């Protein structure tokens, strides 16, 4: 699989580290006050995933390249990248 890095273009998967699903942190506006969001939201954020068979918004780190984190949408059934990567 080749992964589209927004900086370096298509590069071999072996150069990258996976960062998992692009999930939204609860109470992102209040990062210093975790109690601003209910526990259930934190549990969902840490542990529960949509895990779709299809388009999946996910994070990659170009560890052996430009060392940038970026988000991209990939079809988990075909490995086709469906969006431009966003750094």
């Amino acid at each position, binding site marked *: *699989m080749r992964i589209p890095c927004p900086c370096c273009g298509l590069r*071999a*998967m*072996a150069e990258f*580290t*996976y960062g*998992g*699903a692009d999930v939204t942190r609860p109470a992102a506006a209040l990062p210093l006050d975790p109690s601003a969001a209910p*526990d*259930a939201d934190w*549990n*969902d954020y*840490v*542990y*529960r*995933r*949509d*895990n*779709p*068979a299809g388009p*999946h918004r*996910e994070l990659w780190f170009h560890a052996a390249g430009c060392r940038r984190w970026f988000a991209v949408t*990939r079809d*988990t*059934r*075909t*490995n086709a990248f469906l969006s431009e990567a966003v750094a």
Partner: protein
Amino acid sequence: MMPYSVFALARQALTGHRSWPAAWRDPAPRARYQVIVIGGGGHGLATAYYLAKTYGITDVAVLEKAWLGGGNTGRNTAIVRSNYLLTANSRFYEHALKLWEGLSADLNFNVMFSQRGMVNIAHSNAEISALHRRGNAMRLNGVDAELLSRDDLGRLMPGLDLSAAARFPILGGLIQKRGGTARHDAVAWGYARAADARGVDIIQNCEVTGLRRDGDRVIGVETTRGPIAADKVAICVAGDSGRLAAMAGLRLPMESHVLQALVSEPVKPMLDVVAVSGALHVYINQSDKGELVMGGDIDGCNSYAQRGDPHVLDHVVESAAALFPAIRRLRMMRSWGGTVDMSMDGSPIITRLPLAGLYLNGGWCYGGFKGTPAAGTAMAHLVATDRPHPVADRFTLDRFDTGDLLDERGSGSSPWMH
């Protein structure tokens, strides 16, 4: 069912082996069942078998979208062991191992369980300490474990590179002698035949496409062969757990990933144990046909593709050749991938779901084959009694809310790290 025995073999030989009956029926689905099991892998078939055998519930259908054992059951490298650290896992997998020891006789089907020994290899003092700790934990839990010196390893595996010049010099190891391998297909076929003999309908080419519900209760399934009603529905679909949960409107603490394996061309006997190096991320054993069977880590990103990236296989082969230099010139014969259900703490889930009558068996990560007999036992118990089986009562879904996690590897909530 015609029992398999030396007498049956002799009798069939007289007619040129042309009158063996089919091992199981191929019935059309009925309109309703007491219990529907979704997924005709080892776990689903074992669940059906123990429902019939232990709880007398024979009005059961196993629905398989493709063919029996065509999922991870037929793709896995068939290693069976119970060398776990955490008590909850140790007790479950040891229960499974004890069932494996009597499984061929119980099913009247040779699952070729071979207790050839499972060896962990250590390359550093830290790893030696970790193996001491693991061995002690195993023995405290009543599981067999013996530490091995470098010389012991050399006697067990003459091909192992024990020289100081090795890329990662070897210091010692740990063996579970009762561990080994089994024949993966035979496990599916043996459970299918034994369940069928007790009245279970095994229905292939029947994909579940939706759940039928009445309020907060499940009352059946939609399938590619029409709707089927049921009092209880048990999900045993491994890598597809998330898709089935989505049909019930649930999100699971789980991701689907691809795990690959490969075999070499067959060679004469050279390795009669299962060898694992955690540091090199590789395991290797030799099949009865002579092929060297190898695998390593998951690729590391969500996947339902059932195929993976070649760089992962490169790594497996490089590591295996670092351990056993003699295999360098072998050719690879086949590689393949399966979709594994990676849970957020690396341990399985056997639980009731919020919809009444709906049950889930999943989260098996790399290692559900060895758990097959115990998973079937525990799942059957849960479905029949609505209470968790004592050997699996920590495999809850709410542990991700209460914090009572079972993180065997200590790598946190990144499922691709377990």
